[in-house]
């Protein structure tokens, strides 16, 4: 099997894998970064969202052969201590229920706020609507995103 080098959370890794292996499974099964979740494997649910240069990316759709040489941030690397404004706002608004989708939600919201410091309701909906939360924590998430946006302004 071929080997690939990639950077995750500012650390470089070399992995041996089939070329078509999705980045999602490299993160979870090879690097033991299990905060990135498997929900559908087809780019539909958003649970596996990671960042590349601040842009949200569905790691289940990126083949390891394409990921080689690139640099990604996962939920584990979003902040050193859970202090990212989204993470704090998520706790303050008590968003999570089962919590399984929330790493992907937070990565998606963090990227939104990176690009747009004070999104409107419509912009929040547009950014988040491709992410599935079966517990339906949408109103809590909207509040958390606004709270995080306010915190970032300060």
């Amino acid at each position, binding site marked *: 099997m071929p080997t690939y080098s990639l950077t995750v959370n500012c650390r470089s890794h070399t992995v041996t894998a089939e070329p078509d292996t999705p980045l999602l499974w490299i993160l979870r099964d090879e690097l033991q970064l299990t905060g990135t979740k498997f929900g559908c494997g087809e780019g539909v649910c958003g649970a596996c969202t990671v960042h590349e240069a601040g842009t949200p990316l569905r790691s289940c759709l990126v083949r390891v052969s394409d990921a080689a040489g690139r640099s990604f941030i996962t939920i584990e690397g979003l902040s050193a201590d859970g202090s990212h404004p989204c993470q704090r706002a998520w*706790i303050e608004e008590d968003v999570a229920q089962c919590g399984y989708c929330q790493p992907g939600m937070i990565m998606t919201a963090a990227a939104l706020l990176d690009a747009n410091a004070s999104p409107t309701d419509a912009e929040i909906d547009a950014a988040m609507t491709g992410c599935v*939360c079966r517990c*339906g924590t949408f109103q809590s998430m909207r509040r958390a995103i606004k709270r995080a946006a306010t915190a970032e302004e300060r």
Partner: protein
Amino acid sequence: MKPLTRREFLSSSAAIGYGLVFALHIPELEPVGTAVAPTAPFDPNAYLSIASDDTVTIYLVRHEMGQGVRTLLPMMVAEELEADLDHIRLEQAVTGPRFAGIRLHTSGSSSSRRTYAVLREAGAAARQMLVAAAAERWGVEPDTCRAESGTVVHVASGRRLTFGQLAEAAARLPVPEAPALKDSADFKILGTPMRRVDGPDIVTGRARYGLDVRVPGMLYASIERAPVLGAKLVRFDPAAALARPGVVEVVPVVSGIQQGVAVVARNTWAAMSARRVLDIEWDLGAHQEFDSDRFMADLPRRLDEGDLFEVRHEGDASAALESAALRHVATYTFPVQAHAPLETMNCTADVRADSAEFWAPTQTQHRCMEQAVKVTGFPEDRILIHAIQMGGGFGRRLFADYLAESAEISKAIARPVQVVWTREDETRHGYFLPCTAERLEGGLDAEGRLLGLVHRSTASDLTIYDIHGGRDIYGDTPPEPKAPDHYSSGLSPWGAFDNPYDIPHLRVDAVDVPSPIPYGPWRAVEYPSTVFARESFLDELAHLAGRDPLQFRLALIGEEQRMIGPLTLDRRRLARVHELAAERAGWSRPLLQDDRLRGRGIAANVYHGGSYVAQVAEVSLARDRSDLRVERITCVVDCGLALNPLGVSGQVESGIAWGLSCTLRGRIDFKDGRAVQRGYQDFRVLAMSEMPALDIHIVPSQEQPGGFGEHPVPMVAPAVANAVFGATGLRVRSLPLTLE
């Protein structure tokens, strides 16, 4: 009391941790089988122990799936124990002697109801012993001492000892059988909004779900299951799959809901992708032409032809209908639904030569154990079941078919293995909420009062109970004939049996309709379809009577408490949630006049006599009746004492989203015996942009806690359908809601 921040609570509980639960917070698990319960000198009952260093360990006997039991159950213990939340650590109960006689099982929105007395008593007994131990040490009367914040204090002298200092002495005292409980008016923790204890772990990705379990030497398995309901495995050729990189074994699996062939590999992706090259021959069996559209279309006819079961007969409904000035009949249908939790089914199994260990995201260690015993052949004392936090439960994890699969594979390959369902597996191969038809007929007198009601419901059995119990529902052996009280003794169909209204003449019957689709519990179980029909029909009758739907309903709610079978119903509470919901929603105010069609609808339900919920939905549509939007839902909940109000409102938000998903587009179809939908792309669940504004109100109450996890679900569909009628004059009698 000022609630602690969850961060404080969690960091204190995690820092002191040892044993398996806390091993889950670090990347590698302890080697299997080495975890032991911590030894603590004071261990008065199964639910808590206190160590000399003041650590209070609370053992969780219910399962976290988002409903907040990891937060709520410790609140119950700590309230009575007078423990300091800073010094509590949580440990999920593991099957074994400590919990003998305790059913480790989470269902029916019963966690708060069923544990409320037990956990408070556990805390109170321990508190009483600690106080007695302190009094003995000081040579004073126990009633001159009291417990507070993890200490016992002698009030007059101010002397103080910590729980840890008293632990050894308390352990020598007898455990009181009926400890005195606090008056709920004195609660300092219960009734206070508390954030989720797991929040910090969830937002950093540290929270461990079933799919995150890692055991040394484990492999991963993905199962290609029968393409048609009930198809049998004839033969398979593993060669092509075995030739794929990373694949270790290919083995048959027959212990799940559907038969299959498992590919076992060194990582998840290798297992999933090698399934595609499996060469399998199936006997497609009797259901290869099964078509759910035909089945559904036939259900109304079956109401008159199937085996009829009496559910609830009061008065003479036939005579009442005969005497009515106006009669009306309507039939409603409700399609098959999938659970679609975000974390797919999975289980990690290690079946060794003479023992076995499982890590299951499950609502029921109890049923997991039954399956583990059945597949491994080991006695219970050779098996450990660890319950792992679930990425959604919703009733899907109430049966342990996926544990049985993992046990079968691990046993066959003599290695630890994690079985991982794909999204498509999850959507097509689990068990489902039954599709139903409900026919209601009502008679009004000349003044528009409801004289009598006849409700006939298809009441398909939840066959997962048979499958789990070892019966092949696709086999040749027909099921035992059902006793005449088969449904009524189970208070079934819920929502038809416990119709909460004061109707002079009522007849409810159920008709049994067998189906090849495996059926099982789903969020709110039987209520969604019956309440959709019942609450829509009341709205139909109100409009026929020329009455305001709210006033029509209030006239059907008597003043009294009354019993329906074993359920006590307080009609005043039902009336009050109606009135509050209407008031908060501005029921009597005119709707906005603009270029859209607008309407309001109301619906309500009582869940097993315990929790009362009313909802008002407000919808708008374009003038051509396209572009339906649910603008706002007002939900008033009386669930008795709200033990954690923040948790209750979260569950209401969640239940409304769940109900709206099924109202707007939830359905699973079967063609040629195969589920058509494959995932979230075609079994679409509600998106953020579709979530209406919510007004959630929890009625202040000191009544017994009544549960709340499922309660807001059933009335969403009828409230929305009734609002659509208000806006358009079109009556919706089948779901998902369409206006054609």
